[in-house]
């Protein structure tokens, strides 16, 4: 097991290098270091000297990928790419182009992101499963048909509408919750409620429908029929067998997103003014702050790979036939 994880982590290194190289290429195809300097220095009274100085200060005065003038390994190491990427593998993110320390920023912004993403994940899972179970339970009545129709309808509404409607009705018209903002600690509760509510509602349609299919598949299996033939009540069958076995694909499918919860949600955070990592990424893209973008992409890729490893582990854990090798 340990050797397996280690190997997978080593395997992650070429992936991370690839991710880095791609991010780097995408960014510098369109932006020269001069552009970045100008963007950071502002609009008024910017002189060529100031741009040069900014580039030196932020380490953008080197060649991009290959220094043809240098000799030996310095050809590769004395470049913008190497100098900005190498440290990242030690999780040294350095400073953003705006002068703020990125690691520091990530540490403080992680919590608001988690405060939204974690409840959304947990409550979303619970609500979706409850909804799906209800539909399965009442599969002989009109509730199932209309439940499915409702799911398709909910799926067909753009996520933006949920946010807009939530803010408009709950916060503006009925004065029930603050419309946006965030606070740490227990005070944050009322700020978190609305985004969580909206996000859960937005995910309900597709989630519940998918889980319903899983449960129905489980119900069709022989052991359930056997259980029922033994005279077990419907409720018991549902909770003892169907839910328990249905949870396996649901949970293993959910594990992959678990680490990515740190990254927050881009749209929700910027709509509700949550100072998390999602809005950090969006801001950085809009301000073309390369250092931050690169760090966030790196972190995202890393967490994604961790998620993949966790998925494998969870598979082997629930199904002993799958061996990690």
């Amino acid at each position: 097991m340990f050797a397996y994880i280690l190997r997978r982590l080593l395997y992650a290194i070429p992936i991370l290098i690839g991710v880095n190289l791609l991010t780097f290429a995408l960014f510098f195809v369109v932006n020269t270091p001069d552009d970045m300097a100008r963007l950071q220095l502002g609009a008024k009274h910017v002189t060529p000297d100031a741009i040069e100085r900014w580039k030196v200060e932020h380490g953008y005065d080197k060649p991009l990928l290959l220094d043809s003038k240098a000799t030996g390994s310095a050809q590769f190491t004395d470049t913008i790419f190497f100098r900005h990427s190498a440290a990242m593998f030690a999780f040294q993110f350095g400073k953003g182009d705006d002068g703020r320390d990125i690691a520091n920023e990530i540490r403080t912004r992680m919590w608001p992101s988690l405060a939204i993403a974690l409840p959304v994940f947990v409550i979303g899972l619970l609500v979706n499963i409850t909804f799906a179970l209800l539909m399965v339970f009442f599969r002989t009545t009109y509730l199932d048909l209309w439940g499915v129709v409702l799911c398709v309808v909910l799926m067909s509404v753009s996520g933006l509408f949920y946010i807009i409607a939530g803010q408009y009705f709950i916060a503006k018209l009925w004065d029930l919750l603050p419309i946006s903002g965030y606070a740490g600690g227990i005070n944050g509760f009322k700020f978190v409620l609305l985004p969580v509510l909206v996000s859960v509602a937005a995910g309900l349609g597709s989630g519940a429908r998918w889980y319903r299919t899983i449960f129905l598949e489980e119900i069709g299996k022989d052991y359930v029929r056997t259980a029922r033939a033994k005279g077990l009540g419907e409720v018991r069958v549902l909770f003892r067998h169907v839910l328990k076995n249905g949870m396996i694909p649901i949970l293993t499918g959910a594990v992959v997103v678990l680490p990515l919860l740190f990254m927050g949600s881009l749209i929700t955070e910027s709509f509700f003014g949550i100072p998390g990592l999602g809005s950090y990424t969006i801001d950085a893209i809009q301000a073309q702050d390369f250092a931050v973008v690169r760090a966030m992409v790196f972190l995202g890729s890393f967490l994604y790979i961790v998620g993949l490893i966790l998925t494998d582990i969870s598979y082997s854990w629930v199904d002993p036939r799958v061996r990690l090798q």
Partner: protein
Amino acid sequence: MSFMPVVLWTDRLIFALLAAVLELVWFIRRHPHLRAPWAAVARRPMAMGAALVLAVFVVIGLLDSLHYRERLPDSPPGQPQYSVEVLSAFDALVGPLRTRQEKTYSAPLAMQLYAKEFIERDGATVRDYPRLKYGGAHLKRADAREPDIVRRILVGLAQGLAVGLLLFGLLAAWQTRHRHMVFGTWLTAWATGHLGWPGRTIALTVALMLMLGMVTFHLAAGYHVFGTDKVGQDVLYISLKSIRTGLVIGTLTTLVTLPLAIVLGIAAGYFRGWVDDVIQYVYTVLNSIPGVLLIAAAVLIVQVAIEAHPDLFDTAAARADIRLLALCLIMGVTSWTSLARLLRGESLKLRTLDYVEAARAFGVSHARIISRHIFPNVFHLVLIAIVLDFSGLVLAEAVLSYVGVGVDPTMYSWGNMINGARLELAREPVVWWQLGAAFAFMFTLVLAANLFADGVRDAFDPRLEGRR
């Protein structure tokens, strides 16, 4: 010639896609085993109703893809000059809807502007709601508006119903002759749903759409059905124009996705070894970069390319078009991975089947094995993925436009409409019609697509049969 045809890049691809779909339909028709699942789709009322709605959207989208530039009226005969504005067959069809611009906001079916202004009345300046230039301009007095609207709705309903009945009569006549049935028997079979195809749903959907269309037609002749936006553009027109954008994103993206996903997915599963490693590496890398970033970068790259070659993109439409195409391309590049993974898994299973192993043992070439044995057996997965992805892509466009990396801001799209409508909600009283219209159109398209996709999936994936 009084116009010059313009073929934008997306137009080319759309018509290429159309040709491919027609070709496929023709091919399927000739092969009974391919036809069977489609016949199953055709038996589902939900799917067929949805397909009809989709067809209406597609027709509008196609009409909107026949672009041309008008010849300027007084250009010299030897050297015709053309307007820089690119219009489409759809614009020509709806004519006045495009040109009847008011000054600024007006509510649906209103005859006055939404905000008060200073107007000269009997020599004195008063602050009041000014009359619209076009909306309800045929009315003399304000209290004539409601009866007029009711009249138009009734006329529209009646006409729609009449046309619907006429079509139904023709259908019945053809069916009774074709099947040698008595009309009464056929009608009973139709009413009880024993026709073998969802006749009731189709007839009802058609009738409903006809009535809706006729009502809209009659109302639009005299009013702005969905009101006007900030610069007085008819919101109904904007919503209809946005259909093409939505369809292009939903279909062309898949067009990009397919070759990548099919080739790489099957190759990874079939060849295994280093090919599998390389392909897995590529898609893990692509998957682990946030999509928004890739898309933002691609959109920027296209902008640079446009700036570098201003002569290639001489009209605003061409510039917006190439950005739309780039968006489709990059969304395709970011979304092929999930399908590829699915195909890889399936091919891994298929290659171990006896007859595939046997074929390999007999020295049949890889290309032949893949095209004969692997591809036909994963094709249903591809098809399901296409229809399932469509609605997701249409929804994604709105979100991307909100983030500012979507389609060109001058382009008609639901994303741009929603984006603009955000601020309108802060007004008091609320300007809700632009948001409402975008919501209604988008919802209809996506819902229809989802229902159709459900039908297709159920028909093609026997595992899920009976468990919709």
